[in-house]
């Protein structure tokens, strides 16, 4: 079989079909046959490409050329001109706004063009096991500069100009942390890297450690030089074995090259690093809990102040930054503080890595200048919501954050704006949810998480979140009352003001935020016993439309609890008493006869 040379994608979305896509496809295939091209040109029908007013649309790869408003007549012309002779048919070229297209010439994908990769500059570019490739991309030159050209004060000044803030969640100015630790009294000091990334939906720290471990080693060595530390620890969660493996290798190579250990780069500065592995406790992402865990204790937070910069690991001054923050340091030192602060907007300078997850087409990591709007991030870069569904909300900041509804999608992402919307940027996780997500269920999900992860030290967090979860469970089971809603609010505010650490102080946030924007949905649950998103199993029924059912028996065969009855070629029925609302039957019905209903 000869190799396929071209792939032709024909949009078979509803609009293109109604504009004559089928006949275009037929003519196209016949013409290919006429010239014996059918084995080297593959014709594929795709889902809607988004430019519905210009259909039928087709794209020819590998060139990525778009044609619009194709008719049966000019389909043959495209084969004869473009495929056979390699000449683009100018008058049929796509002329619309390319922003509407989901399938575009690949080099123009906004996923790539909109990014400014600083913290993630080496990801996917270098071999993480090769220190030479890291050096080829200017690695360890910043360390050299710090040791030979800059004073410790100079470095702090550069960070101050860069306006870099901690990328782990709290957003504290990085230069200030460095300055405090540098000025703290004591001969013994430590630097720590927080790689206990745990917010659901965030995974940039893992990607950096796995793809570019040397950037963390270099940045921590620089930090140690500036604050005057002799030893450093990287606290990595045990769930990231590959990150641990790659970092261990990077540290060994750095020692071999003289970037770690005694007399770094031939100077009198000595510093070494060690990896500490977590053991499955989310709360260890809180800096004082992390310090306790490194000391070999339970990971429970300490009362602040004193802050770690004054009294941290073994009561010594300690500098703590997370992976992404460190990853920004070497390029900032190489290029200068102003270079970094040219990106972003007032109060939120530089770039930020966001993790796109959930119901979004392009799941993954993107690094963009701060101040970008949510719309651009989710729709242009992220490609929008798949499956023709509508966006409902975006959850940011993990269990400490909140949900942003569709109406507010034009908000620029800054520390201040997110605060105003009742959420935080946090570590940069963005969980996109489509119309099928129930916001009460989402809130319940986060509370389950907090109840599981609360360290148990203080009462508001340990017991309070549990009570909140019980109320949410009542609501999703249809047993909630309007009093419950008020109770939930009061309890939440109480926990936020009385908990010891950041985990408890922010734990009610997902509930408070969903109540703020989706009050109707809460009310529907308690007042009408209805789940508008048809998600809460106790509030829905799965039913068969007897007019559409042809009696194929596919549903009855797949039902795990034998709740579906009916004879062949006769409409079937679901017994609501037996049905567990698992949705298996919905997935197999080819006639659209089965649906979920909520009263």
């Amino acid at each position: 079989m000869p190799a396929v040379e071209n792939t032709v994608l024909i949009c078979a979305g509803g609009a293109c079909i109604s504009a004559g896509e089928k006949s275009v496809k037929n003519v196209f295939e016949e013409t290919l046959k006429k010239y014996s091209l059918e084995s080297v040109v593959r014709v594929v029908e795709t889902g809607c490409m988004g430019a519905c007013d210009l259909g039928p649309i087709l794209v020819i790869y590998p060139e990525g050329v778009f044609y619009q408003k194709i008719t049966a007549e000019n389909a043959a012309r495209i084969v004869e001109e473009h495929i056979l002779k390699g000449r683009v048919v100018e008058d049929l070229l796509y002329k619309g706004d390319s922003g509407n297209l989901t399938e575009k010439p690949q080099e123009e994908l906004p996923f790539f063009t909109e990014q400014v990769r600083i913290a993630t500059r080496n990801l996917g570019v270098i071999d993480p096991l090769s220190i030479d490739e890291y050096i080829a991309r200017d690695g360890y030159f910043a360390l050299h500069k710090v040791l030979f050209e800059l004073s410790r004060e100079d470095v702090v000044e550069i960070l101050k100009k860069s306006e870099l803030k901690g990328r782990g969640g709290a957003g504290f100015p990085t230069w200030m942390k460095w300055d405090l630790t540098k000025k703290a009294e004591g001969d013994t000091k430590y630097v720590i890297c927080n790689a206990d990334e745990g917010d659901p939906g965030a995974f940039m720290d893992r990607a950096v450690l796995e793809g570019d471990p040397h950037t963390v080693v270099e940045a921590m060595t620089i930090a140690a030089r500036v604050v005057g530390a002799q030893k450093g620890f990287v606290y990595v969660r045990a769930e990231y074995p590959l990150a641990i493996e790659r970092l261990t290798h990077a540290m060994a190579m750095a020692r071999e090259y003289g970037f770690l250990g005694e007399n770094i780069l031939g100077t009198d500065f000595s510093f070494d690093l060690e990896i500490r592995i977590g053991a499955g406790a989310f709360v260890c992402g809180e800096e004082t809990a992390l310090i306790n865990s490194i000391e070999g204790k339970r990971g429970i937070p300490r009362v602040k102040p004193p802050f770690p910069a004054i009294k941290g690991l073994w009561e010594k001054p300690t500098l703590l930054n997370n992976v992404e923050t460190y990853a920004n340091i070497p390029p900032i030192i190489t290029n200068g503080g102003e270079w970094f602060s040219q990106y972003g907007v007032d109060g939120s300078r530089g770039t930020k890595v966001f993790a796109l997850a959930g119901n979004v087409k392009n799941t993954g990591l993107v690094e963009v200048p701060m101040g970008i709007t949510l719309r651009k991030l989710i729709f242009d870069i992220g490609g929008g919501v798949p499956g023709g569904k509508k966006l409902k909300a975006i959850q940011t900041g993990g269990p400490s954050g909140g949900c942003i509804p569709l109406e507010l999608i034009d908000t620029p992402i800054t520390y201040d704006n997110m605060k105003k919307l009742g959420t935080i940027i946090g570590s940069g996780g963005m969980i996109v949810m489509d119309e099928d997500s129930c916001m009460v269920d989402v809130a319940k999900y986060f509370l389950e998480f907090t109840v599981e992860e609360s360290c148990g030290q203080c009462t508001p967090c340990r017991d309070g979140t549990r009570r909140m979860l019980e109320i949410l469970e009542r609501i999703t089971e249809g047993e909630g009352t309007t009093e419950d809603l008020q109770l939930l609010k009061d309890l939440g505010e109480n926990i936020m003001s009385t908990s010891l650490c950041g985990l408890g102080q922010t734990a009610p946030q997902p509930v408070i935020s969903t109540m703020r924007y989706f009050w109707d949905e809460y009310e529907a649950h308690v007042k009408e016993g209805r789940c508008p998103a048809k998600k809460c199993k106790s509030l829905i029924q799965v039913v068969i439309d007897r007019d559409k059912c042809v009696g194929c028996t596919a549903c009855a065969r797949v039902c795990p609890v034998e709740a579906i009855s009916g004879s062949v070629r006769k409409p079937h029925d679901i017994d609501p008493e037996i049905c567990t609302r698992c949705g298996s039957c919905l997935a197999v019905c080819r006639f659209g006869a089965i649906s979920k209903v909520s009263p």
Partner: protein
Amino acid sequence: MPKIKSLEELMKIKENAMKGLKMRDSGKRGKVIVAMGTCGIAAGAKDTLRAIVDSLEEKGIDDVAVVQSGCFGLCDVEPTIEVHLEGSEPIIYGHVSPTQAKRVVEQHIVGGKVVGDLIVKRGEL
């Protein structure tokens, strides 16, 4: 390896390694980079890597290196590979199952034609 003590030594390593990254004077005709972050591995990158190595071996190709990198960010299309042959722009392919990996070797590396339907990005990251 003696420890590095000067900027000159650092520059020297950089220059040598740049050649490797850009493939000049490396004695190879090209390289295939397989994204081996945990997300890539979870999506099957290990099988893809094996398929590429096997397929190159089968065809007796020894002037194309197979190397690994971290995740470049577009998890949705994992497993991803980058094919970079000397004298042409690098191509990133997505959804590269072992079967597709064989196609890339046959069509792109042997045949010199890019595999249009798998392309995620042309040109350097």
